[in-house]
Each structure stands twice: as structure tokens, then as C-alpha cells.
């Protein structure tokens, strides 16, 4: 990367990190509170009655999913809201007029989303330590899935923002698509508990692969082959990068 592009990239990333840091009460605190409630209600109160799942206590079993769920939601939310505001207030024009290649714009926003996803993920992980002992089975798998999931959902947030024309449009996808996919992606249960039809249907849910691979990284257990899961995540990332760059090149939603 040339120094000009590197500086442009750093500028976008710095701007993004400053943006969500300034409003930490809206960006970092809510997921911390929500997941604390999940840990208390599902982990402690209800979890004690559920017993073991996959050879682990219920709270140990759901911790990886809850961490990853907050990473998914926050990476997505960061990029979709930031890029949509940029469009809405027209300061996207600051970038369009400047000699910043589209891939640098995309990388900058995605890095911003990853930064928020990871910060929230770390906060939630620290909170989980109050409720359970966290063991890490594979640091490499944990870190890779942590980052790849964040990248994937930042890209998805970016695409949503490109098409969004109103604030409603940026909340429809998280409410009606992202949340169901996350809740049905094996955060709270193993798909082995489901009847065969629903097990098979669950396999088309990309979140399932991320949650299970992350769970494998932390606990060493997974409903699916980790190598296949990683390949699927990388495949989705590749497709979304191509699609996002195509949207930027055509100027969809940002140029007349």
C-alpha cells in the first residue's frame, strides 16, 4: 500500500474509532448490559436447571455464542449506521472527491466495524469471567473466527448502508434477518437437539458456522467440521468484498 493510501486508510479508521468511542454509552455499554443479563438469566437462573450441553455446563456452552453474538451485532451496527450517516449528511462527498480508491474506503469502514466488534467482544468476554471460568482450547481458531466474523458482518452492514434510504432501512435487516439468524445459529443450543429436518435447515444459516467454530476455539466442541466452517466464512467474505466493491464502483446509493 502506498503511503498516500495508507494515510487515507488510517484517517478513515481513526475517524471511525473516534466516532464510536465518543458515544460509548450508545455503542459499548448496551451490549455489556444485555449480555450480563443473558449470563444471569440464561446462564445462572435457567441454565442451572438445564444441566450439561456438549459435555459442558450450560453457561460454559452459551458463553462463546454470546460473545460472538455481540461481535456480530456490533460490527454490523457500526458500519451500517456510520456509512448511512455519511451518506445522509452528504459527507461521503469528502471521500468521493478525494483520490481514495474504493477498496481503501471499504477497508477503512470494515476496520472500524471490526474495531468496535472486537472491543465489545473483549468487554463481553471480561464480563463472562464473572460467571464462569473461560478456557481457551485453541487461541488461533478463537482469534481467527473472532476477526473473520467481525469482517463478514461489517461487510454486510456496509452493503445494507449502501442500499438504505432511510433509518428504517438500516433497522429492518438487523431486526428481521440478523437477529433470527443469530438466535437460530446455535448460540443457545446444540443443533443436535433439533429434529433432522431443522438440523438440515440450520446448516444453511452462516451464523451457525461462526458460532460453532468459535465454540470450538474456546471449548473444543462443535456441531460441524471447523475446516468446512472456516472455508464457508472465508467464501462469504470473499463474495461480500466483491459485491461491495462493485457497488462502490457503480456508485450505487452514493452517486447520482
Amino acid at each position: 500500500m502506498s503511503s498516500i493510501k495508507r494515510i487515507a486508510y488510517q484517517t478513515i479508521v481513526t475517524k471511525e474509532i473516534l466516532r464510536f468511542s465518543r458515544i460509548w454509552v450508545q455503542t459499548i455499554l448496551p451490549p455489556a448490559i444485555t449480555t450480563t443479563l443473558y449470563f444471569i438469566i440464561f446462564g445462572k437462573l435457567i441454565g442451572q436447571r438445564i444441566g450439561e450441553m456438549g459435555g459442558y455446563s450450560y453457561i460454559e456452552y452459551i458463553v462463546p455464542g454470546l460473545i460472538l453474538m455481540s461481535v456480530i451485532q456490533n460490527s454490523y451496527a457500526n458500519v451500517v449506521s456510520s456509512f448511512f450517516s455519511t451518506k445522509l449528511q452528504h459527507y461521503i462527498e469528502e471521500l468521493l472527491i478525494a483520490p481514495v480508491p474504493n477498496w481503501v474506503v471499504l477497508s477503512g469502514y470494515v476496520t472500524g466495524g471490526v474495531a468496535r466488534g472486537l472491543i465489545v467482544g473483549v468487554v463481553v468476554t471480561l464480563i463472562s469471567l464473572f460467571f464462569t471460568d473461560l478456557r481457551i482450547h485453541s487461541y488461533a481458531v478463537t482469534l481467527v473466527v473472532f476477526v473473520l466474523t467481525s469482517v463478514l458482518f461489517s461487510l454486510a452492514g456496509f452493503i445494507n448502508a449502501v442500499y438504505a434510504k432511510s433509518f428504517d432501512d438500516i433497522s429492518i435487516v438487523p431486526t428481521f434477518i440478523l437477529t433470527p439468524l443469530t438466535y437460530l445459529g446455535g448460540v443457545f443450543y446444540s443443533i443436535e437437539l433439533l429434529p433432522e429436518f431443522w438440523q438440515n435447515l440450520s446448516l444453511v444459516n452462516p451464523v451457525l458456522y461462526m458460532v460453532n467454530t468459535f465454540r470450538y476455539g474456546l471449548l473444543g466442541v462443535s456441531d460441524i467440521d471447523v475446516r468446512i466452517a472456516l472455508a464457508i466464512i472465508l467464501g462469504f467474505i470473499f463474495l461480500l468484498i466483491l459485491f461491495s466493491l462493485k457497488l462502490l464502483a457503480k456508485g450505487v446509493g452514493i452517486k447520482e
Partner: protein
Amino acid sequence: MSALVIENLHKTYRNGFTALKGVSLVVEEGDFFALLGPNGAGKSTAISIIASLANKTSGQLSVYGHDLETDKEQAKRLIGLVPQEFNFNMWEPVVEILVNQAGYYGIPRKQAFERAEATLRQLDLWDKRHTQARWLSGGMKRRLMIARALVHRPRLLILDEPTAGVDIEIRRSMWRFMREINQQGTTIILTTHYLEEAENLCRNIAIIHHGRIIEQTSMAGLLSQLHTEVFVIDLDHPLEQAPVLSDYAVSLLDPQTLEVTVAREKRLNGLFQALSQQGIQVTSMRNKQNRLEQMFIDLVERPDPGA
């Protein structure tokens, strides 16, 4: 060298509206160039395409010899734009807006702060550097837009109605500033609805109407095309009726004010002489209409040959 060359530029929007119908334009290096036209004529569309804010349908553009399609990054580095509408993050402090913009042009952060300081001082905004943009007055926001456009030191500055809505004092200080940066070598393209502004500042002019350039010439050349000029003359003593002058059309606006139409080939000395011979004393005199305004209306009211 030409600062901007536009060849046969067309733009048709997705709704089928054709905003530009083959615009060709050359702006020379160092020029202070007016791009004028009525609302909806295609000025802003042309500017948006030059600044990469809109996609063209066809045509070619180059900035200081760099093609905007094949050598986009080099071309973009040379352009600064002050758009019509405020388009900065209203929640960001003034200095951050400039530092970020400099960063997009690859200027390291330390140097970006230095440039931001220099530019904000030039535009009397340094005291407001930590203020969020939304708290600035309208005039300050306009100056912030100019500062942001200049922070990367562009060689071609495009000003799309930069003084719209600002009071006369600020407008005049902005004129001084624009003249200064033009004298320092920055080529400026100005669009404005204040034709007095264009007449005062610009050396060359193009008039765009219905998506076509209908006139491109020097300001002096354009004004010399005026066939008549209308003057309003204030008199020392009231008159009961308008005097009859053989070479001039005269009407009485009120007992102490005359309106006189002077043909291009006639001289004002002759007018004063004729008035003196009838014992009429003149106390002051002014153009009824800005000269460029008169010419502009003449041009845009002609039937559209392509319609």
C-alpha cells in the same frame, strides 16, 4: 496548459432526464472562470461530474492533462470543491474536518494539523477550531467549506455558489480571499447567481443553458456584445416631463430621476452635453441593471436551438 478540458460531456439520469447535452469547455491554467446559467441549466451536474460526485454518461474530462477516467487519482489530487450545500459532519470539530480531509489526500497527520491551522487562520476560523461545525454561523460554515477544499492545496478550485446566503461584508472578504488565491496561481471556476460577483472576479465566462454551452468568451468580450446600456440619472432639480434628446431614449421615472438608454456606439459625453444644453444638472448616475445580468438575460432568453 489547460487546467480543465471537457469534451462532449453528456449526462442522462436514470429517470431519463438529460442534464448535459454535449458540453465542451476549456479553462486555462490560472484563470478565474465563471460558469453561469439559470437554475437547472446543468452547472451543478457538470461540477459533480468533474468532482467525481456523479457518473457521466459519456464524454471526456481531464485536469491539468490527467484524464479523469484513466488517471483518476492524479486528476483528483488537483481538484478542490466547495459545493453548494453544506456537506460536512456537523458533529465534528472544525479542525478535525480539515485534518481528516487532508488525510484523505495522503497528508500525514502532523502536517495536516499545520495545514489546517494555516488555512483556518487565513479564513478567520482558527478561534473556532474546537467548535462542532453545527454551532457555526452560516457565513462561518461557508468559510469552513472553502478551508476544507483548500487544505490539500488544489491547483483547480471549483466554487459552486460559495457566497450564497452570506452578508455583503463576508461576501466581499471572500472575494478578496478568492482573488488572492487566484493571484497565487490557483485556477478558479466559479458558479454564482450574483452576476455582479462574476463580473467583478472572473476573466472568462461560459454560459450553460438547457445542458449546452451557449456562450464561452472573455468577460470583456461578452460585455462588449451589449447593444445598449440603461442608466438611471439623478437630477439637481425636478422636471415636469422627460427632455427630448435626439440620440437617446429618455423617460422620467420620477420628477428628479431619468432613465436613459444609451446605444453602444454613443458616448456618455454627448448625453451630458445634451442635458446641459437643456439646463439639466446631473448629481449622480448608475447602471439600471448589472451589465452582465443584462447580457445573461439576453442570452438565456433566446430560443433554444436544440429544443
